[in-house]
Protein backbone atom coordinates (compact mmCIF):
# COMPACT_ATOMS: atom_id res chain seq x y z
CA UNK A 1 0.00 0.00 0.00
CA UNK A 2 1.29 3.41 -0.87
CA UNK A 3 1.60 6.32 1.46
CA UNK A 4 0.89 9.66 -0.12
CA UNK A 5 2.74 12.79 0.61
CA UNK A 6 -0.01 15.26 1.31
CA UNK A 7 1.35 18.68 2.25
CA UNK A 8 4.42 20.83 2.74
CA UNK A 9 4.95 22.57 6.05
CA UNK A 10 7.91 24.88 5.93
CA UNK A 11 10.21 22.38 4.27
CA UNK A 12 11.20 23.44 0.78
CA UNK A 13 12.65 20.02 0.04
CA UNK A 14 9.22 18.44 0.68
CA UNK A 15 8.14 19.27 -2.83
CA UNK A 16 10.72 16.90 -4.25
CA UNK A 17 9.45 13.95 -2.24
CA UNK A 18 8.12 10.96 -4.11
CA UNK A 19 5.76 8.29 -2.85
CA UNK A 20 7.31 5.62 -0.69
CA UNK A 21 6.02 2.20 0.03
CA UNK A 22 5.16 1.03 3.49
CA UNK A 23 7.90 -1.56 3.08
CA UNK A 24 10.43 1.22 2.60
CA UNK A 25 9.12 3.02 5.66
CA UNK A 26 9.17 -0.08 7.76
CA UNK A 27 12.76 -0.77 6.77
CA UNK A 28 13.80 2.79 7.57
CA UNK A 29 12.08 2.72 10.96
CA UNK A 30 13.78 -0.56 11.83
CA UNK A 31 17.15 0.77 10.73
CA UNK A 32 16.76 3.97 12.77
CA UNK A 33 15.59 2.05 15.80
CA UNK A 34 18.62 -0.22 15.59
CA UNK A 35 21.08 2.62 15.15
CA UNK A 36 19.58 4.71 17.91
CA UNK A 37 19.43 1.75 20.25
CA UNK A 38 23.22 1.73 20.15
CA UNK A 39 23.19 5.18 21.74
CA UNK A 40 23.20 5.10 25.52
CA UNK A 41 23.93 8.73 26.34
CA UNK A 42 23.43 11.96 24.45
CA UNK A 43 24.66 15.43 25.20
CA UNK A 44 23.61 18.11 22.77
CA UNK A 45 22.99 21.81 22.55
CA UNK A 46 19.73 22.98 21.06
CA UNK A 47 18.22 26.01 19.42
CA UNK A 48 14.48 26.10 19.80
CA UNK A 49 12.66 28.54 17.55
CA UNK A 50 8.99 28.97 18.27
CA UNK A 51 7.02 30.93 15.76
CA UNK A 52 3.87 32.20 17.39
CA UNK A 53 1.15 32.68 14.82
CA UNK A 54 -0.24 35.60 16.75
CA UNK A 55 3.06 37.54 16.63
CA UNK A 56 4.46 36.26 13.32
CA UNK A 57 7.81 36.41 15.02
CA UNK A 58 10.28 33.84 16.21
CA UNK A 59 10.98 33.32 19.84
CA UNK A 60 14.34 31.65 20.41
CA UNK A 61 15.32 29.49 23.36
CA UNK A 62 18.81 28.04 23.66
CA UNK A 63 20.22 25.41 25.93
CA UNK A 64 21.39 21.81 26.27
CA UNK A 65 19.77 18.39 26.49
CA UNK A 66 21.22 15.36 28.27
CA UNK A 67 19.76 11.90 27.80
CA UNK A 68 20.74 8.71 29.54
CA UNK A 69 18.72 5.70 28.49
CA UNK A 70 16.37 4.23 29.48
CA UNK A 71 14.58 7.12 31.16
CA UNK A 72 16.76 10.02 32.27
CA UNK A 73 16.42 13.31 30.49
CA UNK A 74 17.69 16.74 31.52
CA UNK A 75 16.67 19.92 29.76
CA UNK A 76 18.79 23.00 30.48
CA UNK A 77 17.74 26.40 29.12
CA UNK A 78 20.36 29.15 29.14
CA UNK A 79 18.63 31.86 27.17
CA UNK A 80 16.44 33.96 27.50
CA UNK A 81 15.93 32.49 30.98
CA UNK A 82 17.92 30.08 33.08
CA UNK A 83 15.99 26.90 33.72
CA UNK A 84 16.66 23.23 34.38
CA UNK A 85 14.21 20.34 34.15
CA UNK A 86 15.13 16.81 35.16
CA UNK A 87 12.78 14.03 34.15
CA UNK A 88 12.51 10.63 35.65
CA UNK A 89 9.77 8.02 35.25
CA UNK A 90 6.79 9.82 36.74
CA UNK A 91 8.12 13.09 38.09
CA UNK A 92 9.93 16.10 36.87
CA UNK A 93 12.05 18.40 39.00
CA UNK A 94 12.42 21.89 37.72
CA UNK A 95 14.48 24.85 38.80
CA UNK A 96 14.50 28.36 37.45
CA UNK A 97 16.68 31.31 38.23
CA UNK A 98 13.82 33.71 38.91
CA UNK A 99 12.18 31.75 41.70
CA UNK A 100 15.43 30.06 42.76
CA UNK A 101 13.30 27.11 43.80
CA UNK A 102 13.19 23.46 42.87
CA UNK A 103 9.70 22.24 42.18
CA UNK A 104 8.67 18.61 41.83
CA UNK A 105 5.73 17.80 39.63
CA UNK A 106 3.96 14.49 39.41
CA UNK A 107 3.22 13.87 35.76
CA UNK A 108 0.20 11.72 36.50
CA UNK A 109 -1.38 14.65 38.34
CA UNK A 110 -0.60 17.16 35.61
CA UNK A 111 -2.07 15.95 32.32
CA UNK A 112 -0.79 18.95 30.32
CA UNK A 113 2.77 18.37 31.47
CA UNK A 114 2.42 14.64 31.00
CA UNK A 115 1.29 15.09 27.40
CA UNK A 116 4.12 17.52 26.62
CA UNK A 117 6.79 15.40 28.28
CA UNK A 118 5.37 12.26 26.68
CA UNK A 119 5.78 13.91 23.28
CA UNK A 120 9.37 14.86 24.07
CA UNK A 121 10.17 11.30 25.09
CA UNK A 122 8.68 9.88 21.93
CA UNK A 123 10.65 12.10 19.57
CA UNK A 124 13.93 11.60 21.40
CA UNK A 125 13.55 7.83 21.63
CA UNK A 126 14.05 6.94 17.98
CA UNK A 127 11.62 4.09 18.46
CA UNK A 128 8.89 5.11 16.09
CA UNK A 129 7.28 1.87 14.92
CA UNK A 130 4.78 1.86 17.83
CA UNK A 131 3.63 5.27 16.65
CA UNK A 132 2.00 3.77 13.57
CA UNK A 133 -1.03 3.18 15.78
CA UNK A 134 -1.59 6.89 16.41
CA UNK A 135 0.22 8.54 13.51
CA UNK A 136 0.42 8.34 9.80
CA UNK A 137 4.12 8.30 9.05
CA UNK A 138 5.52 9.61 5.79
CA UNK A 139 9.02 9.06 4.57
CA UNK A 140 9.88 12.48 3.15
CA UNK A 141 13.48 11.71 2.34
CA UNK A 142 15.74 8.72 2.73
CA UNK A 143 19.22 10.27 2.70
CA UNK A 144 19.44 11.73 5.24
CA UNK A 145 16.21 10.39 6.62
CA UNK A 146 13.32 12.79 7.12
CA UNK A 147 10.05 11.51 8.55
CA UNK A 148 6.75 13.28 8.89
CA UNK A 149 4.25 12.20 11.55
CA UNK A 150 0.63 13.21 11.19
CA UNK A 151 -1.49 12.34 14.21
CA UNK A 152 -4.62 10.41 13.45
CA UNK A 153 -7.94 12.08 14.30
CA UNK A 154 -9.30 11.53 17.82
CA UNK A 155 -5.87 10.92 19.33
CA UNK A 156 -4.45 13.05 22.15
CA UNK A 157 -1.75 14.50 19.91
CA UNK A 158 -4.27 14.99 17.11
CA UNK A 159 -6.11 17.57 19.19
CA UNK A 160 -3.09 19.85 19.25
CA UNK A 161 -0.55 18.81 16.64
CA UNK A 162 -0.90 19.05 12.90
CA UNK A 163 2.37 17.34 12.08
CA UNK A 164 5.85 16.58 13.37
CA UNK A 165 8.81 16.30 11.03
CA UNK A 166 11.97 14.62 12.27
CA UNK A 167 15.21 15.04 10.31
CA UNK A 168 18.09 12.74 11.10
CA UNK A 169 21.80 13.29 10.87
CA UNK A 170 23.63 11.76 7.92
CA UNK A 171 24.93 8.91 10.10
CA UNK A 172 21.34 8.29 11.31
CA UNK A 173 22.58 7.93 14.86
CA UNK A 174 20.59 10.86 16.12
CA UNK A 175 18.13 13.59 15.27
CA UNK A 176 19.26 16.75 13.57
CA UNK A 177 16.01 18.69 13.80
CA UNK A 178 12.42 18.31 14.96
CA UNK A 179 9.79 20.55 13.42
CA UNK A 180 6.34 20.67 15.00
CA UNK A 181 3.36 22.33 13.44
CA UNK A 182 0.48 22.93 15.81
CA UNK A 183 -3.15 23.18 14.86
CA UNK A 184 -3.31 26.76 16.13
CA UNK A 185 -0.71 27.82 13.58
CA UNK A 186 2.31 27.98 15.90
CA UNK A 187 5.43 26.13 14.81
CA UNK A 188 8.43 24.91 16.78
CA UNK A 189 11.81 24.06 15.32
CA UNK A 190 14.24 22.25 17.58
CA UNK A 191 17.70 22.14 16.06
CA UNK A 192 20.35 20.02 17.76
CA UNK A 193 23.90 21.23 17.46
CA UNK A 194 27.24 20.02 18.79
CA UNK A 195 25.71 16.62 19.56
CA UNK A 196 27.95 14.11 21.32
CA UNK A 197 26.94 10.49 21.64
CA UNK A 198 27.88 7.80 24.13
CA UNK A 199 30.02 10.03 26.28
CA UNK A 200 29.84 10.15 30.07
CA UNK A 201 27.32 12.71 31.31
CA UNK A 202 28.59 14.75 34.22
CA UNK A 203 26.66 14.33 37.46
CA UNK A 204 25.86 18.04 37.59
CA UNK A 205 23.65 17.66 34.51
CA UNK A 206 21.13 15.74 36.63
CA UNK A 207 20.91 18.41 39.30
CA UNK A 208 17.89 20.68 39.28
CA UNK A 209 19.77 23.86 40.09
CA UNK A 210 21.99 26.49 38.51
CA UNK A 211 23.78 25.09 35.47
CA UNK A 212 27.46 24.31 35.98
CA UNK A 213 28.35 25.26 32.40
Amino acid at each position, binding site marked *: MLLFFTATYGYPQDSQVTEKTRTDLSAVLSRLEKKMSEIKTIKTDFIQEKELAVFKQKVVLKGSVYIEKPSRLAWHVDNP*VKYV*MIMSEDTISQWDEDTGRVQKISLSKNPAFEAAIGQMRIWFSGSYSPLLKDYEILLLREKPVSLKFIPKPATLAGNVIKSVTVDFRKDEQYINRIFIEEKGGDTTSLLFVDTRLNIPVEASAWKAGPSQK
Partner: protein
Amino acid sequence: MFKYFIIPVIILLHLTGCAGIPFQKAERVPIGKIEPSEVKEQFALMLPEKFRIINSMVFEYKGEAISFIGYSDVDTLEKTFTVVGLTQFGIKLLELTGNNYKTELRFAIEEFTKRGNFAEAVADDIKKIYFNRLPGAGAEASAKKYEIVFSRNENGATIEHVFAGVGNLLVEKRCTVDNIAVWSVYYYEYRVENGKLYPAGIILENHKYDYRLIIRLKEIMPLTS
Protein backbone atom coordinates in the same frame (compact mmCIF):
# COMPACT_ATOMS: atom_id res chain seq x y z
CA MET B 1 20.43 39.75 72.69
CA PHE B 2 20.32 37.95 69.38
CA LYS B 3 16.81 36.60 69.95
CA TYR B 4 15.48 40.11 70.57
CA PHE B 5 16.68 41.02 67.12
CA ILE B 6 15.78 37.88 65.23
CA ILE B 7 12.22 37.43 66.52
CA PRO B 8 10.91 40.74 65.13
CA VAL B 9 12.64 39.98 61.84
CA ILE B 10 10.89 36.60 61.61
CA ILE B 11 7.55 38.18 62.47
CA LEU B 12 8.10 40.88 59.88
CA LEU B 13 9.03 38.36 57.20
CA HIS B 14 5.96 36.33 58.03
CA LEU B 15 3.68 39.35 57.85
CA THR B 16 5.08 40.40 54.50
CA GLY B 17 4.86 36.85 53.18
CA CYS B 18 8.67 36.77 52.86
CA ALA B 19 8.14 39.02 49.87
CA GLY B 20 11.57 40.36 49.03
CA ILE B 21 12.07 42.86 46.26
CA PRO B 22 14.48 41.48 43.68
CA PHE B 23 15.01 44.89 42.06
CA GLN B 24 16.81 48.10 42.90
CA LYS B 25 14.49 50.74 44.28
CA ALA B 26 14.61 54.20 42.71
CA GLU B 27 17.22 56.40 44.30
CA ARG B 28 15.77 58.90 46.76
CA VAL B 29 16.52 62.26 45.26
CA PRO B 30 14.75 65.54 46.05
CA ILE B 31 12.10 66.42 43.50
CA GLY B 32 13.37 69.98 43.25
CA LYS B 33 11.59 72.83 41.55
CA ILE B 34 9.51 71.14 38.91
CA GLU B 35 5.82 71.45 38.21
CA PRO B 36 3.81 68.22 38.51
CA SER B 37 2.41 68.81 35.03
CA GLU B 38 5.95 68.92 33.69
CA VAL B 39 6.75 65.58 35.36
CA LYS B 40 3.75 64.03 33.68
CA GLU B 41 4.56 65.54 30.29
CA GLN B 42 8.20 64.45 30.38
CA PHE B 43 7.25 60.92 31.35
CA ALA B 44 4.60 60.79 28.62
CA LEU B 45 7.23 61.62 25.99
CA MET B 46 9.42 58.72 27.12
CA LEU B 47 6.69 56.08 27.29
CA PRO B 48 6.54 53.68 24.33
CA GLU B 49 3.09 53.70 22.75
CA LYS B 50 3.48 50.25 21.24
CA PHE B 51 5.90 47.57 22.32
CA ARG B 52 6.58 43.86 22.08
CA ILE B 53 8.59 42.39 24.92
CA ILE B 54 9.77 39.11 26.36
CA ASN B 55 9.50 38.82 30.13
CA SER B 56 10.04 36.18 32.70
CA MET B 57 7.13 36.08 35.11
CA VAL B 58 6.83 34.65 38.59
CA PHE B 59 3.43 34.24 40.15
CA GLU B 60 3.54 33.96 43.94
CA TYR B 61 0.55 32.80 45.92
CA LYS B 62 0.31 31.31 49.40
CA GLY B 63 4.01 30.53 49.58
CA GLU B 64 4.06 28.83 46.19
CA ALA B 65 5.75 30.27 43.14
CA ILE B 66 5.43 29.35 39.51
CA SER B 67 7.38 30.92 36.71
CA PHE B 68 6.97 31.11 32.96
CA ILE B 69 7.97 33.18 29.97
CA GLY B 70 5.62 35.87 28.74
CA TYR B 71 5.47 37.44 25.31
CA SER B 72 3.48 40.64 25.36
CA ASP B 73 2.38 42.88 22.56
CA VAL B 74 0.87 46.09 23.91
CA ASP B 75 -0.58 49.18 22.28
CA THR B 76 -1.13 51.72 25.03
CA LEU B 77 -2.90 54.20 22.76
CA GLU B 78 -5.39 51.77 21.23
CA LYS B 79 -5.50 49.95 24.58
CA THR B 80 -5.02 46.53 23.03
CA PHE B 81 -2.82 43.66 24.11
CA THR B 82 -1.83 40.14 23.20
CA VAL B 83 -0.06 37.92 25.67
CA VAL B 84 1.36 34.45 25.23
CA GLY B 85 2.68 32.47 28.19
CA LEU B 86 5.12 29.63 27.58
CA THR B 87 6.87 27.20 29.85
CA GLN B 88 10.64 27.50 29.86
CA PHE B 89 10.77 24.46 27.60
CA GLY B 90 8.58 26.10 25.01
CA ILE B 91 5.12 24.67 25.67
CA LYS B 92 2.32 27.18 25.35
CA LEU B 93 0.30 27.73 28.51
CA LEU B 94 -2.00 30.50 27.41
CA GLU B 95 -2.75 32.96 24.67
CA LEU B 96 -4.86 35.95 25.37
CA THR B 97 -5.87 39.02 23.44
CA GLY B 98 -8.03 41.93 24.39
CA ASN B 99 -8.66 45.59 24.85
CA ASN B 100 -9.98 47.83 27.58
CA TYR B 101 -13.44 46.34 27.32
CA LYS B 102 -13.23 42.72 26.29
CA THR B 103 -10.88 39.77 26.49
CA GLU B 104 -10.56 36.74 24.25
CA LEU B 105 -8.89 33.64 25.61
CA ARG B 106 -7.50 31.96 22.51
CA PHE B 107 -5.77 29.16 24.32
CA ALA B 108 -5.16 27.97 27.85
CA ILE B 109 -4.19 24.64 29.33
CA GLU B 110 -7.03 22.90 31.12
CA GLU B 111 -5.53 23.51 34.57
CA PHE B 112 -5.94 27.25 34.08
CA THR B 113 -9.46 27.25 32.71
CA LYS B 114 -10.70 25.27 35.70
CA ARG B 115 -9.92 28.22 37.98
CA GLY B 116 -12.67 30.84 37.89
CA ASN B 117 -12.55 33.51 35.25
CA PHE B 118 -8.90 33.03 34.47
CA ALA B 119 -8.82 35.11 31.28
CA GLU B 120 -10.36 38.18 32.89
CA ALA B 121 -8.00 37.95 35.87
CA VAL B 122 -4.93 37.87 33.63
CA ALA B 123 -6.29 40.62 31.40
CA ASP B 124 -7.00 42.84 34.41
CA ASP B 125 -3.42 42.47 35.60
CA ILE B 126 -2.03 43.32 32.17
CA LYS B 127 -4.17 46.45 32.05
CA LYS B 128 -3.10 47.51 35.53
CA ILE B 129 0.56 47.08 34.62
CA TYR B 130 0.76 48.52 31.12
CA PHE B 131 -2.26 50.77 30.58
CA ASN B 132 -2.88 54.20 32.11
CA ARG B 133 0.65 54.75 33.32
CA LEU B 134 -0.05 58.46 33.17
CA PRO B 135 -2.35 60.10 35.71
CA GLY B 136 -5.82 60.63 34.31
CA ALA B 137 -7.23 64.04 33.50
CA GLY B 138 -8.08 66.04 36.59
CA ALA B 139 -5.77 64.09 38.89
CA GLU B 140 -4.66 66.18 41.83
CA ALA B 141 -0.93 66.43 42.38
CA SER B 142 0.82 66.76 45.69
CA ALA B 143 4.57 67.28 45.75
CA LYS B 144 6.62 65.98 48.65
CA LYS B 145 10.37 66.18 49.14
CA TYR B 146 11.13 62.90 47.33
CA GLU B 147 8.00 62.19 45.30
CA ILE B 148 5.05 63.60 43.46
CA VAL B 149 1.75 61.82 43.90
CA PHE B 150 -1.13 62.23 41.48
CA SER B 151 -4.47 61.20 42.87
CA ARG B 152 -7.79 60.69 41.16
CA ASN B 153 -11.12 59.12 42.06
CA GLU B 154 -12.42 56.57 39.61
CA ASN B 155 -15.70 54.74 40.25
CA GLY B 156 -15.35 54.84 44.00
CA ALA B 157 -11.66 53.91 43.98
CA THR B 158 -8.65 56.17 44.40
CA ILE B 159 -5.95 55.68 41.78
CA GLU B 160 -2.57 57.15 42.63
CA HIS B 161 0.52 57.53 40.46
CA VAL B 162 3.78 58.09 42.34
CA PHE B 163 6.73 59.67 40.51
CA ALA B 164 10.17 59.65 42.12
CA GLY B 165 13.87 59.01 41.65
CA VAL B 166 16.27 60.35 39.06
CA GLY B 167 14.22 61.77 36.18
CA ASN B 168 11.00 61.69 38.22
CA LEU B 169 9.74 58.44 36.74
CA LEU B 170 6.66 56.43 37.62
CA VAL B 171 7.63 54.14 40.51
CA GLU B 172 4.21 53.08 41.73
CA LYS B 173 0.61 52.96 40.67
CA ARG B 174 -1.88 51.98 43.34
CA CYS B 175 -5.57 51.57 43.94
CA THR B 176 -7.33 52.00 47.26
CA VAL B 177 -10.98 51.81 48.20
CA ASP B 178 -12.02 53.45 51.48
CA ASN B 179 -8.32 53.74 52.35
CA ILE B 180 -7.84 49.99 51.97
CA ALA B 181 -5.17 48.96 49.48
CA VAL B 182 -6.60 46.85 46.66
CA TRP B 183 -3.60 46.55 44.36
CA SER B 184 -0.23 48.18 43.67
CA VAL B 185 2.12 48.05 40.71
CA TYR B 186 5.78 48.96 41.28
CA TYR B 187 8.17 49.83 38.46
CA TYR B 188 11.93 49.43 38.85
CA GLU B 189 15.21 49.92 37.06
CA TYR B 190 14.07 51.82 33.99
CA ARG B 191 16.23 51.46 30.93
CA VAL B 192 16.12 53.49 27.76
CA GLU B 193 15.85 51.72 24.44
CA ASN B 194 15.22 53.55 21.15
CA GLY B 195 14.57 56.69 23.17
CA LYS B 196 11.80 55.07 25.21
CA LEU B 197 11.62 53.94 28.81
CA TYR B 198 11.14 50.32 29.80
CA PRO B 199 11.08 49.14 33.42
CA ALA B 200 13.39 46.15 33.78
CA GLY B 201 11.41 45.03 36.81
CA ILE B 202 7.73 45.21 37.66
CA ILE B 203 5.92 43.87 40.70
CA LEU B 204 2.16 43.69 40.89
CA GLU B 205 0.73 43.11 44.33
CA ASN B 206 -2.90 42.16 44.50
CA HIS B 207 -3.73 42.86 48.14
CA LYS B 208 -7.32 41.75 47.77
CA TYR B 209 -6.48 38.25 46.54
CA ASP B 210 -3.07 38.16 48.17
CA TYR B 211 -0.85 37.28 45.25
CA ARG B 212 2.21 38.82 43.67
CA LEU B 213 3.42 38.87 40.09
CA ILE B 214 7.09 39.61 39.47
CA ILE B 215 8.03 40.52 35.92
CA ARG B 216 11.58 40.77 34.59
CA LEU B 217 12.21 42.31 31.21
CA LYS B 218 14.35 40.01 29.06
CA GLU B 219 14.11 41.43 25.59
CA ILE B 220 12.47 44.22 23.64
CA MET B 221 11.49 42.84 20.24
CA PRO B 222 11.07 44.83 17.04
CA LEU B 223 7.50 45.49 16.00
CA THR B 224 7.18 43.77 12.66
CA SER B 225 3.42 43.57 12.29
